[in-house]
Structures are given as structure tokens and as C-alpha cells.
């Protein structure tokens, strides 16, 4: 509207002036966005460092770590088992129909196990935990922000980052690898269900291929990824919730929390995939 007004007033006089003005505006916009992005990166790095350092500040928060491990880990178990089972079953089916055309269906055990342990296990597991627990973290901390509960912590001289973020990151570092391990085992079992029980591949051949093809380095790589994903997901989700009041342009209150929650899930998923590529690049 402002542009229209400016255009309306100046159309008879100086069109090059308008062009210059609009050019300046775009530069201002780009500059503003760059500054804002730099600030956000700085803030998230400080948030992460502060949270990690606070893990080692006494008294240790064992009770809270247990609570969050229960929430992030134990309560995600059903979703992870279900996702792992069907991922393995689909891989078994797809793998069988692809391999059978080359007459190498016996390699199904290797294909399923390596795909799951190296890639799909850590990635899908992290995405499912983000959807279930990460969104809840962002929403809970976001509500605490808008209802002044975080301010209340500060008035009690309680460090909110230590109180809210540190136990969650420890809990995530415990839960992510364990859930990934469960996902891997259930996924391989899913491949066995479709490959061996439905399609008739010899059971011993399937299991033998799983055992012979999976190396320690594959398992270690998968666990390394899950540790990194735990840090990425917890940091993004807690950060988004904690700074709900800063990251919302058109919404505060309930809308602000919903935007923070959505952003946390979307950004976590994107970063999981980017980080997965980077780690895989260095591991292979």
C-alpha cells in the first residue's frame, strides 16, 4: 500500500527515484534478514553451550533426567516399534521384488539390515521422536514462556536453561540411541516377516546375511548419528519454545506457541536430513 502511495504521489515527477527507493528497500530487507539470522544463530549457540555446561553444575538433576527419559524414551517406544516394524516390512517387500529380478533375493537380509542400521533407523527414529516428544517440548516451554513461568523461575534465582533444557538434552542422549537400537532390531524382524515368512526366503539365509554383512562400524555409525540427532532435535525444540516471544511475527499467546511448535518440528526434520547427509559423507 505504501508503495502505491509513493507511486501515486511521484508518478508525474521522478520514476528513477522510485526505483532507487525500492532498491534501497530490498537491500534493507536483505540486511535486516541477515542480521536477524545472525542473531538467531548466535542465540541458539549460546543457548546450547549454556545448557550443556549446566549439565555439570551441581546439584545434578537426576530426577528430572529420569522424568524426561521416561517421556522421550519409554513413551515413544510404541511409536518406534510400530514405525520400525512397518519400515522393515516394506523394505522386505520392495527389496525382494527388486532382488528377485536379478536372482539375488538371498541378499535381502543384507539389504534390509544395512539400510536400517546405517540410515533409516537413526533418521526415522529421530523424526518420529521429533513428532512425538520434540513438539511437546517446544509447546510446553512455549506455554511456560507466555504465562510468565520462565520469568517466575528467574525471580527464584533458578536458571531456566539449566532447569528446562539441560535435563532434556541428557534424557535425549540416553533415549535416542536406545530407541534407534530397538528400531533397528524390530525393522530387521519386519524384513524377516515379509521376506522369509511371506515370500519364502530361507530363514537361515536371511539371518546369516544379516549377521555376516553388518559390521561394528555400521552400528557405531548409526549410534553416532542418533547422538547427533538427539542434540539437534532437543536444542531446536527447546530453543523454539524458550524464545517463543521473539520468533513470532504476527502471533503471540496461543498462536505464538503453535507457530513455535510447528517451526521446531519442521526445522528439526530438515536439520536431521542435512546432518544425516553430512555424517554419511564423512562415514562412507
Amino acid at each position, binding site marked *: 500500500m505504501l508503495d502505491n502511495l509513493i507511486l501515486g504521489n511521484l508518478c508525474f515527477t521522478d520514476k528513477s527515484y522510485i526505483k532507487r527507493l525500492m532498491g534501497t528497500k530490498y537491500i534493507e530487507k536483505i540486511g535486516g534478514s541477515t542480521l536477524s539470522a545472525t542473531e538467531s544463530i548466535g542465540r541458539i549457540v549460546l543457548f546450547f553451550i549454556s545448557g550443556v555446561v549446566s549439565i555439570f553444575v551441581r*546439584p545434578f538433576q537426576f530426577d528430572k533426567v529420569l522424568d524426561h527419559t521416561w517421556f522421550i524414551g519409554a513413551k515413544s517406544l510404541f511409536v518406534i516399534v510400530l514405525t520400525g516394524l512397518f519400515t522393515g516390512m516394506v523394505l522386505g517387500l520392495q527389496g525382494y521384488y527388486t532382488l528377485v529380478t536379478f536372482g539375488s533375493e538371498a541378499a535381502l537380509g543384507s539389504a534390509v539390515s544395512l539400510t536400517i542400521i546405517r540410515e533409516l533407523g537413526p533418521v526415522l527414529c529421530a523424526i518420529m521422536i521429533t513428532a512425538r516428544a520434540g513438539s511437546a517440548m517446544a509447546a*510446553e516451554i512455549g*506455554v*511456560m514462556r507466555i*504465562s*510468565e*513461568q520462565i*520469568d*517466575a523461575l*528467574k*525471580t*527464584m*534465582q*533458578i536458571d531456566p536453561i539449566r*532447569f528446562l533444557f539441560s535435563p532434556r538434552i541428557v534424557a535425549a542422549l540416553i533415549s535416542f540411541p536406545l530407541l534407534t537400537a530397538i528400531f533397528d532390531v524390530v525393522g530387521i524382524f519386519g524384513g524377516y516377516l515379509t521376506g522369509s515368512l511371506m515370500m519364502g526366503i530361507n530363514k537361515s539365509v536371511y539371518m546369516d546375511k544379516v549377521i555376516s554383512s553388518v559390521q561394528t562400524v555400521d552400528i557405531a555409525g548409526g549410534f553416532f548419528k542418533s547422538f547427533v540427532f538427539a542434540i539437534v532435535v532437543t536444542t531446536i525444540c527447546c530453543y523454539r519454545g524458550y524464545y517463543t516471544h521473539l520468533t513470532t511475527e504476527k502471533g503471540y499467546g496461543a498462536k505464538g506457541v503453535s507457530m513455535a511448535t510447528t517451526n521446531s518440528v519442521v526445522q528439526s526434520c530438515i536439520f536431521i536430513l542435512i546432518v544425516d547427509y553430512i555424517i554419511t559423507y564423512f562415514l562412507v
Partner: protein
Amino acid sequence: MTSPLIQLVDVKKSFGAHQVLTGVNLSIHKGEILAVIGKSGTGKSVLLKHIIGLIHQDSGEILIQGKPLHKMSEKKSFLFREELSYMFQENALFDSMNVFENIGLPLAERSQYTKFIIEEKVKTRMEQLGLGPIGEKFPAQLSGGMRKRVALARALVTDPKVVLFDEPTTGLDPVRKKKVHSMIEEYQKQFGFTAVIVSHDIPEIFDVAQHIAMLDEGKIIFEGSKDDILDAHNDTVNAFIRGDEIGNSSYTDKYQPEDKYE
């Protein structure tokens, strides 16, 4: 007169283009109850948040027993703030914790009390505030009045030396309001803390506070006792107490009780 416990000197604060505090000068003396009154949106809560450290001033100084707070070492500033307590306007209770955990949190987190001592202290405060057997309930399960009392119990559980109350009676019925006021008065006498109360309860708050300050357009425009404020020769103060806009002739001016009988 003794030197003030807390002193705000020319404190200014803006949020974007909006200047909320335009130079606040205010003294808070040890052991007194100070009421800060003023229209909504004049920066009373912002003022309290400066004292507790939730907001930092753009310019001016906050002095603690004559020493600038921002020049204090981190440890000294932490020790000072540990002696402060804040009761939020909307209570700010932790909705995922029950009443008992809410009240006990400041003790459990910042002190090295044993579980037994924390339990005893929380129970005592709950009894003193008439909270009864609601320890296991969550804030969402309580009435507005109960939530206020839980917030008050949490603010007092650490035996603070200074308590900042941000509209402690908002949303309460007149009976509960009176009770909260008398509780603050009673506990202040009992424990000797310094209290700063932001309030709109005119004239009830005058009976509770020994010292009253009025904030208007970001500045303290009046300071004094109950008698001083009732005799104040300041149109803004008088209009506020009467509940009028400045410039309007008030209802009490127009309607004199004697008129009725003439």
C-alpha cells in the same frame, strides 16, 4: 531517616519507540509497605520487574543500600536477589506441578534443604494461608482465589526480606481481597519483610501501606502517606483516587450527601 534499602534514580525504559518509564525516582525503606498506584499501562509492573532484575533499565540506577546494583559483583547481586520474592499478577504457577511442588520449588532448587525440611516449611505455609489439603492438586484444578493464595505461599516460603506484589488481589472477590491485604499486613508485621505492592484497590490499599507512590506517564508524581495522598493538591492524584479522568468534574463533586435533604 535511614538510607533507603532500594532506591531507583532516574530510571528510564523504552520498548521500541514507546517510552514506559521516563525517569523514575523512588525510595523503598526497610520494613515498610510501599504501595505503587497508577493507571493501567503506566509501567507499574515494569517498575517492579526492574527491581527483581527481569528487565534492565536503559538509563538511571538502582541502588541497593546506596550501592549501584549493576556495579555489584555477580555473587553479591545474586545474594541480594535471593532475598527478593515476586508474586506475579497472573500467579505464574507451574501448571505441570502440583500445589505442593509449586510452593516447594524455590526451596528445592536454590537451597540445600533436606526433603523433610522442605516438606515441613511448605506444610507450615499452606496451613498459615488456609490452603488445606490441596497439596496434590494442580493449579488448573483450583479456583482463582486459591491460585492466588498458592502464589502467595510460594512467594513467602523462602522467608524473603523483600516481597514484590504485582496486583495481588486481581480477580478476587471483596472478601478475599480484604483477606489477602490483611494477610500481607499480618505477615509483614510477623516476618518484618519489606513489601512493594502494585495495586488498583483504592482506597483499601491505603489502610495496608505506610507509604504510597503514584506513577503517571512513566514518572512518580506523588509520594507520601495515606493522609498525604488524601490531602494532595494534585489534580491527577485526586482524579485517580476518585476514579475520574482529569478535567472531568467528579461524581463526588457533583453529588454531595447533604443535597439530598435540601
